[in-house]
């Protein structure tokens, strides 16, 4: 090897090693990753004790990885390389047909947590059945895309264990409480039910399920023509896209705005925020566009509508309920949405205090199976 060639190589090597080192040192730390929707690790404090027991070292490496320059681009490069190898999945996400990115939820339904959550929910329903009556209680766990959109998965992809789990949940509940949202969705599986790049269901899918539920509950069954369906965002890239860092498809986010006027107020977490619209339009300018509903996850959202009804609904839910509940506005004089992951008061006290007449439990199936806070249902 000639000397000149050696120096060329050494130069390239030094640019890589020292260049990235300098870049990582100069780049100011970010607090939060909008793409990944999570707080990033910060520079840990240097203390003798944490150095000796290895905590500092572990935290420092996490900090370095989280704050690495061009983090999103690296993640995208990795995913692109996996796709170039004809991989049908990356990080437990299928590259499905029609541009769908579909989470596998491997193991979510067979875990101990899943079994325990199923028991907690059954106990909760048994406890409150005498008070509400089964006809005023509904549990709906919305199947995830991997279940409903099975036909779009890559050939020979392993079947998901979700359906079996949901049957177990249903069997453990008191008679008449379970609402089979999966059956409704399966009937419409060729329509746009889920976002291609986000883990939520689309508002249209929620509307289909609401229609069926309203019919069963004896509510007014709305039709699409009662709403102005407005595309609030046409360039939505959601949480699943963020995990992969590549750009596949862009989603549209539709809002169903009732044509007739409904008057209501919305209180978020007590008096923290009072508003006359469910929708937080500022979220549409951020990455997390699904937060247009209620401004994202809140511990307690209270909706009070001007209506003839004197029924009061408690919704125990995750974010899948956000695009569903607005359809029920006029059926109840009060709807409280409680997210037990964030709600730190006693649920039993709230139930006594507010005198609810109806109860709805609405989660996505995987979210429910993996939730670690459901013990609070019995609190």
């Amino acid at each position, binding site marked *: *090897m*000639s*000397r*000149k*060639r*050696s*120096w*060329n*190589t*050494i130069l*390239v*090597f030094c640019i*890589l*090693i*020292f260049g*990235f*080192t300098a870049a*990582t040192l100069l780049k100011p730390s970010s607090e939060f990753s909008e793409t990944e929707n999570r707080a990033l690790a910060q520079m840990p404090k240097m203390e003798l004790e944490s*150095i*000796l027991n*290895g905590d500092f*070292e*572990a935290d*420092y*490496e996490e900090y*370095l*990885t989280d704050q*690495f320059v061009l*983090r999103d681009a*690296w*993640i995208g*490069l*990795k995913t692109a*390389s996996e796709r*170039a*190898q*004809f*991989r*049908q*999945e990356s*990080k437990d996400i299928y590259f499905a047909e029609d541009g769908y990115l579909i989470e596998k939820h491997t193991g979510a339904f067979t875990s101990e947590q899943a079994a325990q959550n199923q028991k907690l929910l059954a106990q909760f329903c048994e406890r409150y059945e005498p008070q509400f009556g089964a006809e005023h209680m509904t549990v709906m766990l919305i199947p995830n895309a991997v279940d409903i959109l099975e036909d779009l998965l*890559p*050939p*020979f*992809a*392993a079947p998901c264990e979700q359906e079996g789990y949901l049957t177990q949940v249903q069997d453990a509940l008191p008679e008449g409480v379970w609402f089979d949202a999966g059956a409704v969705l399966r009937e419409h599986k060729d329509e746009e039910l889920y976002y291609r790049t986000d883990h939520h269901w689309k508002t249209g899918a929620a509307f289909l399920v609401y229609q069926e539920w309203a019919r069963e509950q004896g509510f007014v069954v709305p039709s699409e023509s009662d709403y102005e369906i407005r595309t609030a965002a046409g360039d939505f890239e959601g949480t699943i896209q963020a995990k992969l*860092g590549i750009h596949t498809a862009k989603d549209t986010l539709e809002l169903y705005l009732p044509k007739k006027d409904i008057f209501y107020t919305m209180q978020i977490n007590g008096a923290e925020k009072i508003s006359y619209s469910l929708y937080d339009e500022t979220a549409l300018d951020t990455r997390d566009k699904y937060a247009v509903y209620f401004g994202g996850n809140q511990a307690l959202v209270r909706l009070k509508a001007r209506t003839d009804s004197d029924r009061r609904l408690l919704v125990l839910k995750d974010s899948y309920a956000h695009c569903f509940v607005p359809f029920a506005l006029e059926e109840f004089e009060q709807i409280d949405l409680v997210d037990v992951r964030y709600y730190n008061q006693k649920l039993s006290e709230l139930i006594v205090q507010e005198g609810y007449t109806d109860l709805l439990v609405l989660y996505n199936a995987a979210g429910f199976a993996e939730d670690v806070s459901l013990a609070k249902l019995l609190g």
Partner: protein
Amino acid sequence: MVFSSLLFLFRFLPAVLLLYYIAPRPLRNLVLLLFSLVFYAWGEPVYIVLMLVSILVSYTGGILVDWCLRRHKRGAAKAVLAVSSVVSLSLLGFFKYADFVIGSVNALTGAGMELLQLALPIGISFYTFQTMSYTIDVYRGEAKVQKNLISFGAYVTMFPQLIAGPIVQYKTIDAQLRMRRESAEQFTEGIHRFMIGLGKKVLLANNAGALWDKINVLEYGSLPVSTAWLGLAAYTLQLYFDFSAYSDMAIGLGHMFGFRFLENFNYPYLSKSITEFWRRWHISLGTWFREYVYIPLGGNRVTLWKHVRNLLVVWILTGIWHGANWNFAVWGLYYGLLLLAEKFLWGRRLQRLPSALQHLYCMFFVMLGWNLFVFDDMGKGLSYMKALFGLYGAGFGNGETIYLLYNHVVLLLFLIIGSTQLPAKLGNRLLGRLKGRETAVTVVTNLFYVAVFLLSVAYLVDASYNPFLYFRF
């Protein structure tokens, strides 16, 4: 610390390179020593004391042995050597094997002694063997005594080979420790070798490991034969790429600091017999056991039964060196028996087979060997072996087999081709064609290594799986 981490690439490596090359020549071993200590202490500082003790024992051992030899007191020298070896082996024995012994005694007698639950000091098996080889070689007159504690410390702790080898014998780098000339050519050689190792580890070994993990978590009882073999093949390839990548990176880093370590792997999966396999796999370990155990025991220049005994002793020790567990002893014995069989039973006949069959024979036993190796729990190992031979009646393959195969086909091709000489040959042919066109050669080689580097960084930034297999040895 491991080489395949952002911390190493973008904190440690630039710092050590910078200071090493700024420092005047007499201080360079000191720079290496200090950085190596930081490298070792990162994440587990306590055991650094143990390593320092081990260094001091063999350092003084070497000086005393040399002192005695100079005064022609061979007996005294032997005594010193014995003491220093016993101390070194006791440290290794205590920290690596205490729980194994206690557990085995408990299992045999039901004594119910409590386990010590000591964390295994990283690299202890490697550095103990290095320090022992030094004192022994001084005694044998094969190595010069090293009176400079800093140079000796730098030898033992030298971060490129500290935690996973190759096991560098002191006599092979004595001259380099005293006087070495770093050069741009050697540094470049080091860069190339390091990049190859990094790519092999991050892009190939880790992904092969992820495939093995995917299959290993499945229910063995319903594992079709072909899926079981696919899993074992993935582990077989992971182990080679993981370990040989580490040696590549070690050798490459050595070059960057002007050292030449001996090769540790020579395409082991191209072997046509188990005997050949062990000449190509983890060469520095095989050499160590040959020089310090097998030959001192008499090697093959003894009666037949002693020769057999020597081989079995060496191979059971080799097995146990890999881990404090019965499966490793069995794995070592397995190879001891296979080597004996090749020596005395079917070695000649094997050579007359078509070479494809010889390869098949060798890989079959090597893979079964890894089946013993990978499961600490021998019951689990046997269950997996049952799946390999279809004893559960789970069929030959299913949809999942097809899914796993076509998802990993490119990876598997890279892995299989990568364990042969083909890539090196192709690379050389390409460079040969570009001969005389300096710029073209520079551009092509640099582009290749930059691409490998950038892809590896991408996999490290987004790391969900980056274990290091030889860490526990």
